[in-house]
Each structure stands twice: as structure tokens, then as C-alpha cells.
């Protein structure tokens, strides 16, 4: 049996090669100049893009929050439907995820365009057309639409585990609908909320295509900045690495904060 441990050796070298070393190279690039000297200029230069970073966090947070609000009731309804119907419902939620997100974003371009379907519909209904494409709203819509299934799936999976008998017991003991919601359903679904929020927030805050396709040139996010430093016009991999590093630290911080929530809640439940 101990002999089988040898099998982990190739993996240790693999992880070094393709996970640790690449991240070290990112750090190395972030703290050196093109000629290879040490500098903190790259990292301090990231400060110049503070407004972009704030905007990315803000838009991603809004998108995550709205996703949570609209997915929560939907997931609850779906989780209460068992058997074949429940299975089919899950299939229907999964299906759009099989389409590449570029195509899904393209669909929204068609809808939100100046002469797009939404405005055609509004004019047809005698409303005045709205200007959504190339605004922050379009970016948020794109984020919500693309990452919504990532919110629904973890929510449904925790909600399915809530036994109806638990809720019935609370009702028998005189709980109102509201206190059932706050005292039973919310605590029991916290792990799902935590993983849903992370699974939506992380890709949303680091996206670079959705913002470009739906937000036009005026709504650049952190992802666009990184892309521009590596493959775009302002070629500067050292600055790009510094921004990537900042993004990574930011997300690790968010995740540890989210995990804190989960842990506190677990403690509360034990007491």
C-alpha cells in the first residue's frame, strides 16, 4: 500500500511545473523590469488603474447580488419538485451552459443593440427606446446571464437536502413563514450561497470579453487591462503580471472572507 504513494511523485513534479512555477514567474515578472532588475514600480503603477479595479469589483458585486436574489426563489421552487420533473428542470438549467459564452454574449448584443430587438419591441409597445448597449448595465446583464447557472446549481443542491419534515416541524411548533425562512432555510442554505457567490463573482470580476462586447470601449475591467498588457496594444507583460497578481490577491481575500461566513455559521449551528 505504501508503495502506491510513489504515484504521487509525478504529480508533485507536475504541480510544481504547471501551478507553482507559473505563479512564481508571474510574481517574478511583476517585481522586475524588462532588463531583469528588481523594482516595485509595476505594482505601484497598478494604483493608476484604481478606478478600473473599483469598477470591476462594483459591477461584479452587483451582478452577483442580482444573480443571488433572482436564483434563490427559483432554486427553492425547483428543489421542492422531485422525481422526473426535477431532473428535467435541472437539464433545462444546464443546457445553456453548453453554449460557448461568446455565443451567449453575442445573443445579448443582438437584443440590446440600438436597433436591436428590445428597442424594436419597446417602440412597438409605444415606449421610448432605451440605450443599454455600451453601458455598464449591459455589462452587468451579460455577467448575470452568463454566470446564472453557477448560482442556481449549488443553491439547488443544498436546498434539496432540506427535509420537508424539518419545515413541517417548525410549522407545527408555531413558526410563521417568515421565521421559517430566516431561522431554517437561510442557515441551511448558507454553504450553497457561499459557493454560488464565489462561482459567480470570480469569473465576473475577471472577465474581459463580456465587458468588451457589451460595454464598448468605455467600460474596461481588470481583465481587459491584463489582456491589453499581454496581447493588446499596450504591450507590457511586467505591468500585466503585476495586475494579475493584484487580481489574484483580491480574489483570495474575497474567498477567505466568504469562507469566514461559512465557518461562523457552522459554529452558530452547533451552539
Amino acid at each position, binding site marked *: *500500500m505504501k508503495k*502506491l504513494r510513489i504515484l504521487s511523485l509525478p504529480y508533485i513534479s507536475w504541480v510544481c511545473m504547471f501551478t507553482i512555477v507559473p505563479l512564481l514567474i508571474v510574481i517574478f*515578472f511583476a517585481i522586475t523590469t524588462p532588463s531583469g532588475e528588481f523594482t516595485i514600480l509595476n505594482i505601484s503603477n497598478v494604483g493608476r488603474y484604481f478606478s478600473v479595479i473599483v469598477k470591476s469589483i462594483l459591477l461584479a458585486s452587483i451582478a452577483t447580488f442580482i444573480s443571488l436574489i433572482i436564483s434563490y426563489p427559483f432554486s427553492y421552487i425547483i428543489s421542492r419538485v422531485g422525481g422526473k420533473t426535477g431532473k428535467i*428542470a435541472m437539464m*433545462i438549467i444546464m443546457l445553456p451552459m453548453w453554449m*460557448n459564452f461568446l455565443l451567449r454574449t453575442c445573443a445579448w448584443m443582438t437584443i440590446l443593440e440600438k436597433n436591436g430587438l428590445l428597442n424594436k419591441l419597446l417602440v412597438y409597445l409605444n415606449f421610448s427606446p432605451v440605450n443599454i448597449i455600451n453601458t455598464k448595465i449591459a455589462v452587468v446583464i451579460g455577467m448575470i*446571464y452568463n454566470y446564472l447557472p453557477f448560482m442556481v446549481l449549488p443553491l439547488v443542491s443544498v436546498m434539496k437536502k432540506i427535509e420537508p419534515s424539518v419545515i413541517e416541524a417548525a410549522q407545527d411548533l408555531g413558526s410563521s413563514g417568515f421565521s421559517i425562512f430566516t431561522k431554517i432555510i437561510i442557515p441551511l442554505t448558507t454553504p450553497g450561497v457561499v459557493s454560488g457567490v464565489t462561482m459567480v463573482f470570480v469569473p465576473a470580476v475577471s472577465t474581459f470579453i463580456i465587458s468588451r462586447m457589451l460595454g464598448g470601449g468605455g467600460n474596461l475591467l481588470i481583465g481587459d487591462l491584463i489582456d491589453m498588457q499581454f496581447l493588446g496594444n499596450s504591450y507590457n507583460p511586467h505591468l500585466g503580471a503585476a495586475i494579475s497578481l493584484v487580481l*489574484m490577491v483580491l*480574489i483570495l481575500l474575497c474567498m477567505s472572507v466568504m469562507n469566514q461566513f461559512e465557518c461562523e455559521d457552522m459554529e452558530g449551528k452547533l451552539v
Partner: protein
Amino acid sequence: MKVQKNHKIKLKFISKLYVVLFLLFMYVPLFVLIVFSFNESKSRSVWTGFTLTWYNKLLHNREILHSALNTLIIASAASAIATVIGTVSAVGIHFLKRRWKQALMTLASLPIMNPEIVTGVSLMLLFTFLKLKLGFATLIMAHIAFNVPYVIFNVMPKLEQMDRHLCYAAMDLGCNSTGVFFKVILPEIYPGIISGFLMSIAFSLDDFVISYFNSGPTSQTLPLAIFAMTRRKVSPEINALSTIIFVAALIIILVVNGKEINKKKRGGEK
């Protein structure tokens, strides 16, 4: 009582309405794409008549066909290799001491937790650092790199479910560790291996961000070709492509789920 009943019916109606609205939000954009793939003019908002021209054009679009073939080759090669590496690694990690196991599992989850763009950039920097030219080979390596963790995370739960005494028993009966691996462990964990492989294929076929940074100018995958198409003025060919992908996904999902439901039925009869 009556009031309560009415209230319940109302609640049921509202929840049904909510589900319908939610699904409309998910599916209307897709149906828009599909409907306009049959539209005669290039317009994306005015219906002018039915045509199959765009499908015909798509099927003669060399760039698209070539990149589709590339995607299939890369996804299957990368997933196959990642499945082997991931399975072997998972078994190795499983038998390590607890502290080591936890450390390695955390490392394995890093590429999943990290934003895709950071993983893509870091691999690109690695390849440039090693003076490898970005192209087909780096693309496959990058895909293997992000697929291995998914395989490990699919296989690990099956290993944990496995009764270790099976391995001890096999060894007592004179099996060496190679035999234990192939005759005891593999049959126990193969559902995890299969789902890890399928997950890898799905992620590889769909991946844009990591391919974008590691493909170089010569080799293209389908998502990269789609990206190139969206940057030019959009042609309804992209709608035709979406429709084909949608139908293919629908068929795959129906087949997979149909099989599962059948299996359950048979299980029930037993």
C-alpha cells in the same frame, strides 16, 4: 380554511409564473440566435424570410471547419492524458499521510479557484520563459494543466468511498501493488474516472480564456474562431453555428439523461 386554500393556490401560481419568467430570461436569447440563423437578410432584428444559406456558408467555411477539428483533437488528447495523470495522481495522493494529502489537494484546487485569466497568463509566461513557441503543443499542455485538477476532484471521492481493506485483502492473497492498482482500485473508482474525463472534455471544448493566451497565431480552436468572428461585423453564420452547437448539446444531454433514467427504472425492477 378557505382563505388559506386560496392563498396556497395563489402561491402556486406565482411560483409557476416565476419559474416561467426565469426560464424565459435564460432561453429567449438562445432562441433569438436560433431564429435569426434562418433569416434571409444579414439583419439581426428584422425578419425577411426563411433561408438555409448561412448553414451552407458555414459548412464551406474552411476556417471554422479547421478550428472545429482542432478543438476536437485538442480536447480529446488533452482529456485522455489528463485523465491518466489525474487518476494516477489521485491514487498516489490518497495513500499519502493526511498532512501531505491536504497540502496537495489545496495545490490541486489552485487552478480551479484562480481566475481563468490568471491561469492563462501564468501558463503563457511559463511557455515564453521556457522559450517554447506558442502553438498546438502549448495549447494541449495548457489544456492538460487545467483538466488534471478536475479529474482528481472527480476520482478522489470514489477513492474515499473505497474500502481500504479490499486492498489489504488482495495483498494478503499475494497480489503485488501493480495488481492492486489495476485489479482492485481501478474497478472501484472507474465511475469517477469516467466523469472526470467527460468533465475535462466539456471544459476543453468550451474553453476560451486559457486557449486565447496559449494558442499563438497558428493554431485556432473553435471558441477562438468564434471570437474572431464576433470582432468582425457579425455574420449570421455565427447564429447557424450556435444553432448547431445547441442542437448537439441538447442531443447529448437527452441521451445521457435518458440512459440514466432507464438505468434507474431497471434498478427499480430488480
